[in-house]
């Protein structure tokens, strides 16, 4: 392994300056559950890693109508917060199924997003919650919607020197519900063969006013299927309509065959998981 420096940053300015100094030869470190494994495996070399866990703004977990989640907040800290659990069960779904407790104690949602694998379990749930990513760096700040963040397997919109400070989830509208499910051959500790996140918003009469579906592990990036939104808005949340949404998902994805699953299995799963998560999101929308 190429030797690299370790910097425990304590301010945004310090992270900015280290990243600016090293260009693509430095990266932020949160849980290290991707980064250290990849460095050890020789995937790429770095001259420095910047630990951002000591930056106060990256540790914010603030629920104030909307939820602001700092990029260094571990999954376990987030899902142990009862108010966050109550407000965002669709995010808890994914946080509790990543790795085991050891991984959840260290890994953050923002780092899962920045790792940008199509199988990243937090990315689709964030998309259907309409989350916004706040990016910072020596050259200034910008905000990008989660669905626009990933650009390819392991690739995203971050330029050299940029990093994610926090992610903001809008306050759930009344009548909003969301859910995430993935298919893996084991009960725990595996990478999704396919995953689906859905959110549904119902009006007072029970009609759908919004429905968002995003699919994991079935394309080069998470797949946000806006055609399902077009289909469902204005309709009733019926089994029949959700089966139709599943058919759209089946056609919308572009999976590959690998050791975890075939193209046909992944298409099939996309349909089934879309229907299931729309159903669960609807139950939550009605209950909440």
């Amino acid at each position: 392994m190429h030797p690299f420096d370790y910097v425990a940053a304590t301010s945004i300015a310090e992270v900015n300056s280290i990243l600016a100094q090293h260009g693509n030869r430095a990266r932020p470190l949160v849980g290290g559950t991707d980064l250290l494994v990849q460095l050890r495996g020789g995937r790429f070399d770095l001259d420095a890693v910047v630990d951002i866990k000591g930056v106060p703004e990256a540790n914010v977990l603030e629920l104030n109508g909307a939820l602001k989640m700092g990029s260094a907040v571990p999954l376990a800290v987030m899902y142990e917060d009862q108010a966050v659990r109550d407000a965002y069960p669709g995010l808890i779904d994914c946080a509790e199924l990543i790795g085991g407790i050891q991984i959840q104690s260290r890994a953050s949602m923002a780092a899962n997003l920045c790792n940008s694998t199509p199988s990243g379990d937090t990315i689709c749930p964030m998309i259907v919650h309409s989350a916004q990513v706040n990016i910072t760096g020596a050259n200034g700040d910008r905000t990008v919607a989660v669905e626009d963040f990933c650009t390819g397997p392991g690739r995203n919109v971050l330029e050299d020197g940029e990093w994610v400070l926090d992610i903001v989830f809008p306050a759930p509208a009344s009548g909003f519900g969301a859910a995430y499910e993935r298919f893996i051959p084991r009960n725990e500790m595996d990478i999704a063969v396919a995953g689906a996140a859905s959110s549904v918003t119902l009006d007072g009469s029970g009609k759908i006013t919004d429905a968002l579906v995003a699919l994991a592990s079935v394309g080069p990036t998470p797949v946000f299927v806006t055609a399902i939104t077009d289909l469902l808005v204005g309709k009733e949340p019926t089994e029949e309509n959700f089966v139709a949404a599943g058919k759209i998902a089946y056609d919308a994805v572009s999976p590959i065959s690998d050791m975890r699953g075939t193209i046909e299995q992944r298409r099939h799963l996309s349909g089934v998981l879309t229907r299931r998560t729309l159903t669960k999101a609807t139950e939550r929308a009605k209950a909440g």
Partner: protein
Amino acid sequence: MVDKVHVKTTINGQEYEFLVEPYMSLLETLRDVLNLTGTKEGCNDGNCGACTVEMNGRIVDSCCVLGAEVNGGTINTIEGMATAEGLHPLQQAFLEEAALQCGICTPGFLISAKSLLEREPDADEHRIRYWLAGNLCRCTGYDKIIKAVQKTQATA
């Protein structure tokens, strides 16, 4: 060339001060720098949990932590589990229930199980199995490990 990092930390209640290469994992630091070889290496990539230690109150895979990261922190490892009075009840139960064979996974399981019982003394079997899902064992088939944890609960 990178410079070594100066680290001050508390391990098993004792103060440690040492220099470590900035790219060295906590697992390597414990074993190769501090000679605390009770913590084991299985996969070295976060999958097996053999390297589990408690860091600032939470269990982590020490192969996925840098030694330099523990500066100012608190670490508990398997070396701190037994006391002068004797084995920890979990260690005793693992022996009685034959919850180990080769033993490579055992320190990790013990640290994980201890953390669970301290947080949730009444965890049911499902919860115990979920909590220990990040610890792999190639020998026992898990049932004996779960029984040992339940026996510890029953005798607590």
